[in-house]
């Protein structure tokens, strides 16, 4: 099998748990690059990028970046047009 050096959005759940009140892996994201909508769990996740980078599985644009330093966590969401969740 070919080497595939990415995981998926499931592996970002812990890192993002402090930023979102709900589970982000089930949220639907819309890619700002190509318009594709998909559950965040299906996005391609690159770890130690540095930090984590989630990319659109369709067009490979960056959806989200999260970097944790000893004191702060940075979340860059500019690659997503929206995140969509069901109302509880």
């Amino acid at each position: 099998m070919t080497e595939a050096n990415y995981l998926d959005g499931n592996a970002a759940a812990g890192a993002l748990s402090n930023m979102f009140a709900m589970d982000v892996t089930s949220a639907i994201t819309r890619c700002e690059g190509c318009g594709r909508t998909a559950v965040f769990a299906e996005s391609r996740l690159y770890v130690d990028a540095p930090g984590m980078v989630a990319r659109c599985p369709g067009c490979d644009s960056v959806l989200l970046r999260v970097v944790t330093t000893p004191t702060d966590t940075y979340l860059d969401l500019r690659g997503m047009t929206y995140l969509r969740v069901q109302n509880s």
Partner: protein
Amino acid sequence: MKWQVGTVTDVRQETASARTIVLEVPNWPGHAAGQHVDVRLTAPDGYRASRSYSIASAWTGGTIELTVGEVPEGEVSPYLVEVLTVGDPLEIRGPVGGWFVWRPEFEGPVQLIGGGSGIVPLRAMLRSHAVATSTTPFRLLYSVRRPTSVIYVEDLKELAASDEVDVRLVYTREAPAGEPRVGRIDAEVLEQHAFRPEAGATTYVCGPTPFVETVANLLVGAGHDPARIRTERFGPTGDPQ
């Protein structure tokens, strides 16, 4: 979600390179089958590395279990499989994950397809199914290199004894005597052993990224609804097992 410290209360060797770690975690809130934890190691110089590991056990109160496969030259798994011992602390964060989850109240048959250590969250789902005495039909396709690679051998035999649970192993490099086929999961294997698309099963596919993507493509190619296929990709599995 905060990092918390669990204590190792037991370890069980599953295969030559995989080990189950039993953890006592104070105030564990419970978890759903399929969820995972992040594990963090801190070196004396402050360097930190963290990886995600699926919870292997169903929640019945008490301890939780993780099963870790050793990745050669890995940053975290060699410590967990070779060094960590009973009485040691372990920093974890979780449980997390709401997509790759099965709960007994979900409707419809369940198809589980695991490759290598991808079996771990699927086994949690099977255990959860058993604990709940669920009558939901479950089928498992578990792809391994050889018989010695099988994690949870006894457990899977016990689970397969249930009328609702069907367990099928697929050997990719070396099969036991009498096993007709050696090779990866392909369209024919799915055709023979997986629920048909018309059954409307929810399918959970877990394992190394190439495995998951190959299997997901095969499922879609066979007519399964992509919206009913849930995937979880793991990092590389260790080699000879």
